[in-house]
């Protein structure tokens, strides 16, 4: 089977044997990363915990959502098929448009630092949220005009909730 990935901004094509990692399989097998052969001895000790041996070197790998930890370093990755890559290509044209400020975690709005229509600089504070006894200032991702303020002080917000829009 073939898996298309995006890691650290680079697209990767990985070809794996069809048989998968049967627990009974012993020894190394051949894979191809972007067409180059790599001989790997791979073993899944637990769900999400993988030991790879490549040329004697052993790598402990752990899956954490959309991140793979290898030797303690975190590598975010995404799985793609070609259609999605095509869609993404089109979507990049919109990045000059409005950008959202969203709540990164559940919490309570302590203060709104901007008003609708106000001009803001990139990284200027927009909303202050309190969660886990800590106040966190959320900043504008770009310079522009605040086209919408979606919350007010005292509001409870969930992770991902829209706080404001900057045009």
């Amino acid at each position, binding site marked *: *089977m073939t898996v298309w990935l995006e*890691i650290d901004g680079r697209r990767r094509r990985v070809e794996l044997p069809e048989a*998968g990692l049967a627990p009974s399989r012993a020894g190394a097998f051949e894979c191809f990363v972007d067409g180059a052969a790599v001989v790997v001895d791979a073993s899944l000790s637990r769900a999400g915990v993988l030991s790879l041996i490549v040329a004697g070197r052993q790598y402990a790998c752990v*899956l954490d959502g959309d991140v793979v930890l*290898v030797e303690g370093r975190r590598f975010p990755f995404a*799985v793609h098929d070609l259609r999605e890559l095509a869609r993404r290509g089109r979507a990049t044209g919109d990045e000059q448009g409005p950008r959202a400020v969203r709540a990164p975690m559940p919490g309570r709005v302590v203060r709104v630092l901007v008003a609708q229509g106000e001009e803001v600089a990139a990284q200027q504070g927009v909303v202050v949220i309190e969660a886990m*006894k800590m106040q966190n200032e959320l900043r504008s991702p770009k310079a522009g005009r605040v086209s919408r303020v979606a919350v007010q002080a005292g509001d409870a917000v969930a992770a991902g909730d829209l706080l404001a829009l900057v045009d």
Partner: protein
Amino acid sequence: MLVANRGEIALRIMRSCREMGLGTVAVYSDADRTALHVSYADEAYGIGAAPATESYLRGGRICEVALCAGVDAIHPGYGFLAENAEFAEACAGAGIRFIGPPASAMRMLGSKTRARQAADAVGMPRVPGSVTSLRDVEEARRMAEEIGYPVMLKASAGGGGKGMRAVLSAAQMPEAFAAAASEAERSFGCGEVYLERLLAQARHIEIQVMADEHGNCVYLGERECSVQRRHQKVIEEAPSAVVGAELRRRMGEAACLLALSAGYVSAGTVEFLVDGAENFYFLEMNTRLQVEHPVTELVTGLDLVRMQLEIAMGEPLVVRQEEIALRGHAIECRIYAEDPENDFCPSPGRITRLLQPAGPGIREDCGVYAGWEVPVEYDPLLSKLVAFAGTREAAIDRMLRALDEYVISGIKTNVGLFRRILLDPEFRAGRIDTGYLERLLRADGETCGAEVPEEVVALAAALFVAEMGCGASAVHREPGKGLATAESRWSDAGRREGLRG
């Protein structure tokens, strides 16, 4: 024994209770029914809704539970009701022993301003500043002009870095004063603040004291707590790299003198700033068991909770000052649910995987488990990881080894930050002060780590996609079907795993 707390410290206290054969009673909020401290206890009672003000801060309700369960004593841990003199009095009034100092000592030393007056009374040097709470921002400005900027605003009640604001100039005072007062009000139910000179390049070093009801008080060496972010301790060590036997004796004796002058009983911590010339200045006293007490336990070989309980039973201290010897070096890392790459924003959520370090010289006081959903309502402390070894260098290297073993998935943590600090030459050389960590973070250094070939990362990711997605991996064998399916199946597996923990 009722433990009026949650998380790792509730567990820590119950462990010593069990070892001493004392039955344990847990209290829990609605968010904590499945918390570790509940399933560890012999008895458990719900005390209200998730917000601390509706549960862990409800002293009256907790006293009721204690009476109903027929307990002999309440241990408050740290935070919540630990330094609340009214609660201590309410316990006493209900005939329940409060594990901590008498309310009178708590009032005298727990209020930062009154503690500064007490320090003056025993001739202990302190940081210049106000000895009473500030009436308003005007008084704050006047006092700041008098002692000179920069100054630090601090909450008169409480601790833990809450209600603190550095003020570099008069212009910053109004906003800082309002922020400090409001945070103090929110955190401790008392908005009073005072100010003192901000000492640059100073170390935060604190002395652990322990006093019994018979007038004996000993100091158990110092803890180095200079590695702080936003006035919150991040790494603590014992002993300090810069405290020799003579300075330790001077600071220790001063701390005991202060405690004795207030009729102090049980465990307490006297915090100092120490400058480069070995001058020390009283900061405040914490009238409770401290978060970072394990480093002291490791270098002294003592069990501070057990000592607190024995003292509460009226027993005299088990050690005399001359019997207390420090051995080796201990370092504690406070593992928080926060995202160092996103301005240390709290990261509550479900822990999907937890691989914990162990082996020689490693102690972990952990309050969570794989499958546990870290609630948004409380302090994001997940665990205290402590390394002990013969020397400071060996302890640092041991901690690095343990951090390499630590995997916490599903939420963000500050584990990577510790790796960076412990590899930093300045930290390793012991050249730290209270501004050290903020400087390091501004330096925007590279996260260190082993070199990993790119194709290995790609292989690992591809194998996870292939193997975790579906047992028979039938879908993956037909490239024609596209990998979107694979991805969603893989997400399902992740979710399942989270639920199964």
